[in-house]
């Protein structure tokens, strides 16, 4: 059974290209266009992995990650995408299951490799 990845990204072109890359590698992808939608999708589909943008309307990627960690029994390993990587303080990621922070512009190839490494493939 393919692993299910939730992609939370408000920039449509980026969400599309990430989804395409992951699907091409045989992964199942669910796309959400803002933090709230991502939260609802996560609660509904229980993804194996989360790729989220940091800056999204409504709820930031960190807030989404924190909320899911709080409300779900099992933490979802996460990759955080951001165009503001240097602004994340040392403590911002504490207690969150964030495996890696990738700054934009990023390589979809590297992102896929990181997801596969995290999923143990």
């Amino acid at each position, binding site marked *: 059974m393919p692993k299910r990845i939730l992609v939370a990204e408000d*920039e449509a072109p980026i969400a599309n290209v990430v989804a395409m890359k992951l699907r091409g590698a045989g992964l199942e992808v669910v796309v959400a266009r803002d933090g709230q939608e991502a939260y609802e999708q996560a609660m509904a589909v229980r993804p194996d992995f989360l790729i989220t943008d940091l800056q999204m*309307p409504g709820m930031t990627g960190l807030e989404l990650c924190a909320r899911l960690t709080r409300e779900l029994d099992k933490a979802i390993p996460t990759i955080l995408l951001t165009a503001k990587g240097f602004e994340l303080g040392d403590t911002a990621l504490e207690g969150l299951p964030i495996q890696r922070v990738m700054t934009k512009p990023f390589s*979809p*190839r590297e992102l896929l490799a990181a997801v596969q490494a995290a999923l143990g493939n």
Partner: protein
Amino acid sequence: MIELRRAIAVILLFLGVGVGLHLLMTPLRETDQSATIMAMTLSCGLALAVLGIIGGFLVARLPKERINHVAEYLETMVRRGTLGLVVADNEADALGRLGHAVNRYLAFVKDEIEQTNITAKERQIQIKVLEAERRHVESVIHAISDGVLVTGAFGDLLQANSAAESIFGFRFDAAVRKPVDEVITDKTFLALLHEMRETGLFIPHRTVEWVQNRGGQSLAWRVVLNTVVEGKKRDRLSGVVVVLHDVTKEKEIARMKSDFVSNVTHELKTPLASIKAYIEMLLDGDVHEPAQCREFFQTIGAETDRLNRLIENILNLSRLESGLVPVNKTDLAVTEILRDVGEVMTPQAAQKNIRLEVDLAPVFFRVNGDRDMLYQAVLNVVSNAVKYTPEGGKVRISTYLSDGSVVVEVTDSGYGIPAEELQRVFEKFYRARVSSKVAPGTGLGLPLVKHVVEVIHGGRVTLESQVGKGSTFRILLPAVR
């Protein structure tokens, strides 16, 4: 017997004159004597000298007519209130010679008194000049907008200007000479002063930043502390001079600048991220279908345009804000601007099946403004209205006169903006949540409108909105009468 009496007389005379002159000379050496004390000393000296002379003559039991001559002369001097000479006669005896010597001596005393009087007057003038200088320095200190505070060796308050009074909330008149710990309550600031007193001999100058919480407001101060050191070896600290400069605004500007750079970076990186990702996918052979390839190239093109638009908008706004764009104001008809905007926007509205109503007033309301800038401002508002109104909706542009202002009103039946976001949409790069989902944008259009209308034209921009029903933007410009 007579010789003995004369000898006593001479001794008395010299004693009187000697003591008198000693007193006379004293004020000349003591520079810190006041004019009053000097005058009193002079008088005493003079009286003793005269008494000595008279005593000497009396004791000598001189011939009656010679004594009378001296007495008459002294009476005359008293009546005239002057210091004169001629107590001697032309006798060549010892008394005559003594008289001449006393005369010369009196002339010397007179000169000294005159010189002393001149010196006293000069001192009085100096005192007045110093007093005026002190008042001048005080008024300069009080006129300084920075807070100035001076404490003494034991932490007592010696000087504070009006700015310092309002920073710390005390009255200098009531606080002078009091321990500064009793006058100022802020513990952090007091700690700075204490530290300066303790380490001031080794570190005579320090500049620190101090954040003051005043009535819930946070104020940032740049505090410059200098010690006043005395003694030959400069080993005695006699006070601390503190100057406080308000840097709250500078801090705020620095923060805004940092936010701006951070936002610009984010906005520039976002289209760049798409471009890079799409090119990589094409290069990696992830795209197989020719139609999909074409779609990818189109996305790259669109994101490149977006990047360019963003850079153009940033440059435009930055040039406007820094006053680099020349403002050419003329009396112009707002109706004409609306008509031109209507013509440009009608095709775009038609594409979305939006009805664009341009309600041109029969009267040409005139404002004094820069045509190109006002055109851009109105275009931005109307373009937003069309962009954020769903297909089949309606946008209406109208103009009217209200309270001396020409109002340009743009109403749409669009998605609307929630109340908490109404003011934020005028912030640079801020995009209402709904906006970013519906259409691309830079978040710089409305800040430009606000700057053009409010800063350049002295007008006002207002916004009313209801989620799901639409928004009404109004641009108010002072009407030309």
